[in-house]
């Protein structure tokens, strides 16, 4: 292939209840691409279609330039780590990992030696004889990864690799997974609905909504410049679309002053922490000051998130102490202010 090397090049279409999945997906060797999206967006369907477990309505799947979409799953050589790992319950960890090589025709003793090497690589040589039932969630995940990699795939797929773990082990397993994925020289596509997993594991995010690519880019770029409400919610920003005229952006009826000058349709994003609330009209010069109605108040980590709905929806984070001082209640009106320098505007 000319220009840059592509390991995975796919265009996937499939009929899903209510909408049509249609997306182009590519990944370079060694690259980790995260498919991020709400439940039912088509992420898992995409993964199953890539693996050959779901039908491809139209399009193509090429791995290292060779089309594989006409092949059954067992001939594609695509490694898959399933959501709850699906380790074969009647086989030991070693037998699970040796299963792939055995299917490829590797003699039994050789396959077991190979499986042992893989278990050593994921730090589980001591659990070779254990049945999946006796493994912890994190260990099961590592065995599942070893099993998928033991067939030396050119493409590795991971379906919600951390979803089955509790919050406590998740952190540790995540960093281990990140480390092992960086050692894999093929392309990796992982599916997750957790932005933190996506941001920490992936080199590139592909956000899918209702079967389409909604936004795509490096994690930092996506986090800073969300382009859909879903992404904005994921990364925790207030997001608006409006018409810019210099430093002023019109969002149906309201005007916001922004730091950078633009012209034409733009997105404006700012953090809930950048919003200040006052009971009475404040002195000073915040350029963006408006009277808003409180729609709800809820705990948010150590802080309190105040949702404002009139004249436009905004989330504001304040401290517990501020909440006590302000004595806020739903239905009340407050003054809200955002400094122009705290906002980010970028072309829509």
């Amino acid at each position: 292939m000319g220009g840059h090397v592509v390991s995975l090049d796919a265009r996937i279409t499939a009929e899903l209840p209510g909408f049509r999945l249609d997306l182009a997906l590519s990944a370079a060797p060694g690259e980790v691409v995260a498919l991020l999206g709400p439940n039912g967006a088509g992420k898992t369907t995409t993964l199953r279609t890539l693996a050959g477990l779901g039908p491809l309505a139209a399009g193509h799947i090429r791995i290292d330039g060779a089309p594989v979409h006409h092949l059954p799953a067992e001939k594609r050589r695509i490694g898959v780590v399933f959501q709850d790992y699906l380790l074969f319950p009647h086989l030991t960890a070693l037998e699970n990992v040796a299963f792939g090589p055995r299917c490829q025709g590797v003699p039994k003793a050789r396959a077991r030696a190979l499986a042992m090497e893989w278990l050593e690589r994921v730090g589980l040589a001591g659990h070779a004889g254990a049945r999946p039932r006796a493994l912890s969630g994190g260990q099961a995940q590592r065995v599942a990864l070893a099993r998928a990699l033991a067939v030396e795939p050119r493409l590795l797929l991971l379906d919600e690799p951390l979803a089955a773990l509790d919050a406590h082990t998740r952190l540790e397993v995540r960093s281990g997974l990140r480390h092992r994925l960086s050692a894999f020289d093929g392309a990796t596509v992982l599916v997750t609905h957790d932005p933190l997993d996506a941001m920490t594991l992936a080199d590139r995010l592909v956000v899918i909504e209702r079967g389409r690519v909604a936004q795509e880019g490096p994690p930092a770029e996506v986090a800073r410049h969300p382009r859909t409400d879903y992404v904005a919610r994921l990364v925790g920003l207030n997001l608006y679309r409006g018409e810019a005229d210099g430093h002023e952006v019109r969002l149906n009826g309201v005007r916001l002053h922004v730091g950078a000058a633009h012209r034409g349709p733009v997105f404006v994003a700012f953090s809930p922490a950048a919003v200040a609330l006052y009971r009475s009209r404040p002195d000073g010069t915040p350029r963006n000051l408006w009277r808003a109605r409180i729609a709800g108040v809820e705990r948010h980590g150590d802080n309190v998130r105040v949702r404002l709905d009139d004249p436009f929806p905004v989330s504001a984070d304040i401290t517990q102490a501020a909440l006590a001082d302000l004595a806020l209640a739903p239905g009340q009106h407050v003054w809200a202010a955002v400094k122009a320098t705290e906002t980010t505007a970028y072309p829509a």
Partner: protein
Amino acid sequence: MTSPSAPRDAVRRDPGRPGRTGPGRGAVVRGRVPWALAVPAVIGLAFLVLPLAGLLVRAPWATLGERLARPAVLEALRLSLVSATAATVICLVFGVPLAWLLARVDFRGKRVARALVTVPLVLPPVVGGVALLLVFGRRGLLGQWLESGPGVTLPFTTAGVVLAEAFVAMPFLVISVEGALRGADTRFEDAAATLGASRWTVFRRITLPLVAPGIAAGAVLCWARALGEFGATITFAGNFPGTTQTMPLAVYEALETDPEAAIVLSLVLLAVSVVVLAGLRDRWVGTS
């Protein structure tokens, strides 16, 4: 930042084990059981239990050991066990693949095939025996060819007993195994396929071990049905002591000549049934 980590259904059904609902910790207080339900229920239970109790009460316990040791009884028992086991093996060899086909492969006429499988289940066994005669009898559709060709005669032989029992018992195995296959998590088979396993390898190394408890339960059920087979056997294989007279046939014959012997033989069959039931325990109940 909103955390979208909604609780996922992490608890999956343990493959191969039917869902068992354990008793709740604190029982809910409910109203009285209505008489309209309690009375018929107790009568129904008594109706099922009383005849068995009668069998136990009237058994000639004093001469039991001596009667059980009689060659005719042992011969019938041996023939019953051997033919039921052989029939079960035949049912396993053909029934498990048939169950797999019905559970895993989409083909035209599948609904009809499934309906046909269950026909011997509801067919009077005597009719099954007549049908077997028409096909495997000495002048039957296949029977005349079997006799003139390889010289095999099935009717009125021990092989005929096995055939009749297999015909009647196979649906039990197929239905039981198909249920187990449908209940098994097919995602394990998906996982095996992505590792390069052909469908045959997936079946042999993944599916079969996963549904082994279901197959075992089906085989026991099948064996019990074969053991008790009467109608098709007597019609197709006759009633010849030593070659085709199984326990149920011996019971029937003894009832006319030596009723006490019939009771003894019945007791043996009852004991075998109880052992089978104990072996199945909760497996049987729950998988429908």
